[in-house]
């Protein structure tokens, strides 16, 4: 997961980076100046942690990404809770961690869109991969482009957690997509 932290408080940024790395295995990109973010392909991030001032000044970019934003609250004022997740930087470590945890959980929930069951097309591709056909041959047999085959294979690996051809073959046998005899 890629997170951008945008604030002009260097120490605050470093502290946030430390928390994200130690507890969530996330290495955020730190930006002291908003211009640096916009020079750096701002769409690449899954989430943004920034102050309300920055959000308001660049609302054209940030408001459509509302669900991916956490607001830094630096002063003891009524935090803008109504906007969404916020991070009052003066709270103790445990409270901060709990807020970040909820935010990361919310982002994970948004990212969890890939259905786990294989589509009929993916199953066909799986069977052919398992029988040892090359991508080009699979494309010809199914009358689809090589790029489509590659994209099905990418989905297979993402859904099944299996990368190698032999791993896919054994998965296919274990699930009755292929009998042992077909393969051996």
């Amino acid at each position, binding site marked *: 997961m890629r997170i951008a932290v945008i604030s002009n408080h260097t120490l605050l940024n470093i502290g946030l980076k430390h928390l994200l790395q130690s507890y969530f295995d996330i290495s955020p990109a730190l930006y002291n100046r908003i211009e640096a973010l916009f020079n750096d392909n701002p769409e690449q991030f899954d989430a943004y942690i920034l102050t309300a001032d920055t959000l308001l000044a660049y609302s054209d970019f940030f408001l459509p990404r509302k669900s991916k934003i956490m607001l830094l609250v630096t002063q003891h004022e009524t935090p803008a809770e109504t906007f969404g997740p916020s991070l009052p930087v003066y709270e103790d470590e445990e409270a901060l961690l709990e807020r970040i945890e909820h935010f990361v959980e919310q982002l994970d929930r948004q990212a969890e869109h890939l259905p786990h069951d294989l589509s009929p097309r993916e199953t066909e591709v799986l069977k052919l991969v398992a029988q040892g056909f090359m991508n080009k041959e699979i494309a010809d047999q199914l009358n689809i482009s090589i790029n489509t085959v590659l994209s099905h294979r990418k989905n297979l690996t993402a859904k099944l*957690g*299996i990368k*190698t051809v*032999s*791993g896919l073959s*054994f998965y296919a046998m*274990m699930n009755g997509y292929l009998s042992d005899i077909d393969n051996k």
Partner: protein
Amino acid sequence: MALINAECKLCEVILNEPSLIPVINRFGIVLGVGDKSIRTVCEEKKLDSEFFVTILNTFINEDYFPENRLKSFCAAQIVDYLTQTNAYYQQFQIPNIERHFNSLINQSDSDNNNLELMKQFFEELKKELLSRIEHDRTTWFPAIRVAAESLHGEYYGEPLRNDPIETDSLEEKLDDLKSLFIIHLRGEYDLNLCHGVIFALYSLEKDIKQHNRIRNRILRPIADAMLKACRDKKQ
């Protein structure tokens, strides 16, 4: 874990990180290490303490990999170490996984042929690992030793940069086998024996990753440079 140094007590290092036990075995050190410092143990065993400490550190800390320091060690020393790790896979880790796998299959519901298929996948992986070990033993390692002797400590140039290292098929297959267990396991099986197989697979995987880092990023560039220097010398 923090980096260790030669003045650390070996026992404390191992108490904190028991996965090092097979690694110290490769250097001829067995349990019952007493409370001596690493430097003292290495002096007694006539080991290069700097090499020993570097290997332990790269094993404990996955992010730690001092390429320049590792490349400063002599090739024969690295070959010896990798030979020992190969022997450990062949004589201990692979038989250990097989033993657990066989008991798991014997103790589980006979309708569960998934386990049999997973064992077959493991056999394929084992064959690939053993054939790599055999090639190391009969071809690659002897060639490096011969080159090291014929160069006799002469400067052989900078280690050659390899092409970016391709993904290792052994590591990928081990990963897939883990996924088959963790994500796709079905049917009735003995839970304890299943844990046994999985932990043994994780431990083999960790070791092979370390081995591959040293093999591909250190030994291969050194060996390529040495073999080239030998060829140039003959011409």
